[in-house]
């Protein structure tokens, strides 16, 4: 934008136009699969099974959604997804801001050790095997009958990044604020609750969005935890179960509708808060 006043030669202008077209072409490629699935969810199953090159449905039908909602349990899946995403979000925001605040403002014995443990386990990744002991633990604690165990584990495996974001932001707040609050008689926790937490709003927004996405998009973790329990499945698992359910091609329309239900809420959240998403990703990369 700030270059709009610059003067370009004819040749440079042509090059810029070509580059602009190239970027736009990539945008089309990137958005194509998303449009295909969303628009496809309004096609009849007949049309989907025949195929063809048209993105737009020849006749628009809503029947796929009513079918998915009624026959395929999508109402339950959707509620589960919302519960899971909100749970991970709430827990992540709470633990990361508190921990970030303590790491930023306090010196205590073992601080370095604890801090390096958080970092180390961000990089040590043993893959899906870790779900096995956690599942056994959940069964032993009788937590496997609800999604709470999934929320705890999801928040636990993702928290390190959020803690660093929160600590980095708290570090940038002047310590004079703490001192002043302390003189006014605030305790350590009260400083966090009354002074620091409200100032953390921008970073809380970022953490909330990233962890919401994490919870909403979680797949293998809930897949393992809901192996035998259809009632607990979130959308990601539910939709894919449909795909594996044997008759393959038969229910394309329901799967299209299901996939759309699984991505549209996330896309809407992104459309409204894209700034925070991208800001969070960028600052996470710079610090990591």
């Amino acid at each position, binding site marked *: 934008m700030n270059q709009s006043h610059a003067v370009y030669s004819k040749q440079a202008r042509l090059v810029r136009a070509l580059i*602009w077209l190239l970027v736009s072409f990539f945008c089309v490629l990137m958005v194509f699969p*998303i449009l295909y699935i969303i628009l496809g969810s309004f096609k009849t199953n007949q049309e989907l099974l025949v195929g063809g090159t048209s993105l737009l449905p020849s006749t628009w039908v809503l029947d796929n959604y009513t079918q998915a909602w009624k026959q395929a349990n999508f109402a339950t899946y959707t509620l589960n997804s919302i519960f899971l995403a909100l749970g991970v979000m709430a827990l992540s925001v709470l633990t*990361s801001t508190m921990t970030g605040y303590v790491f930023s403002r306090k*010196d205590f014995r073992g601080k370095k050790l604890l801090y390096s443990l958080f970092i180390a386990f961000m990089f040590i990744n043993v893959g899906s095997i*870790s779900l096995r002991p956690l599942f056994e633990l959940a069964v032993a604690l009788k937590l496997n009958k609800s999604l709470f165990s999934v929320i705890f584990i999801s928040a636990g495996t993702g928290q390190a990044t959020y803690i660093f974001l929160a600590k980095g932001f708290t570090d940038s707040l002047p310590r004079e604020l703490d001192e002043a609050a302390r003189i006014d008689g605030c305790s350590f926790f009260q400083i966090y609750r009354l002074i620091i937490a409200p100032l953390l709003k921008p970073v809380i927004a970022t953490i909330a969005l990233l962890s919401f996405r994490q919870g909403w998009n979680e797949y293998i973790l809930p897949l393992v935890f809901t192996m035998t329990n259809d009632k607990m499945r979130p959308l990601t698992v539910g*939709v894919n179960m449909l795909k594996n359910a044997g008759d393959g*091609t038969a229910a394309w329309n329901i799967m299209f509708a299901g996939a759309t239900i699984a991505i549209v809420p996330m896309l809407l959240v992104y459309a409204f808060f894209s700034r925070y998403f991208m800001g969070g990703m960028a600052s996470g990369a710079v610090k990591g």
Partner: protein
Amino acid sequence: MDVKTNKVRPRRHNQEMLPTSLMLLPSTLLLIVCSIYPFVWIFRYVCYNYNGFTATYTGTKNLERLVKDKQFWQSVGTTFEYAGLKLLFIIPLALLLAVMLHMRMKGHNLQRGILFMPTVIATSISGMIFAFIFATQNGILNAILQNLHLIKTPVKWLTSTDYVMAAVTILAVWGGLGNYMLYFITGLDGVSEDCYESAKIDGANGFKTFFFVTLPMLAPVLKTVLMLAITSAFKDYEAIMVLSKGGPGNRSMVMFLYIYNTIFGTANSSTQPQIGYGALLSVAAALIVGCVTVIYLFVSRKLDHITE
């Protein structure tokens, strides 16, 4: 901190131990339960045959099996192939798009937003979307390619060993491009305008500016991004699990997917879970990823010395 706070600290230290530990408790507990405990647990079973109910000690049998397990080593090879293909396309493309967006032409914010969009979608769902797109008979990709007369007969994207890696790579690039592009844009924002200004005065054209100004100035960011890209490419398996299930004939079976199948079984088979052996495989896989990371760090440090 200054002297005054230092003097006061010992007293406060004791007073505030309780609130401090209470505030650290939730995240520390999650760390112990979700990360440390499973990590330790694995080593308990590496020498056992464990199917989820009974565990019997088998000594070095798992290790012997690992050495002879052709399928596993094949999946390690596939992982390297997949990571190589993904990086080969995603890094140059992301860099190119970042540089082009950095020219800040009309609508660049919208373009950036659209290019980043696929990264907010669940990989499991995008795997499914691409399974529809790549479908041989009624998939839209084959229909478009046939309409453009680029192909005569439908390509078996997911059912032929020749094309499945291409399909998997396309999905990986589509799903990850926005992330890396954004990292590069952040890096480019950090490069001072003065550098471009002086390059312009010296008469450098676009290509020269890119290779002699932008790229060297981006080197530190590029190093970090490559590191992230490598480690995450080796760990990918969720999208492949949905898109091709590792098939056809294990052609797209990456090691973490193979491990998942060993531990939890595949959807349609009745094989018993082999958790002890899976634990050993996990350790092996983590070591492989660790080695690759260390080698990368070593090489990139060496390169630093040369360029200096």
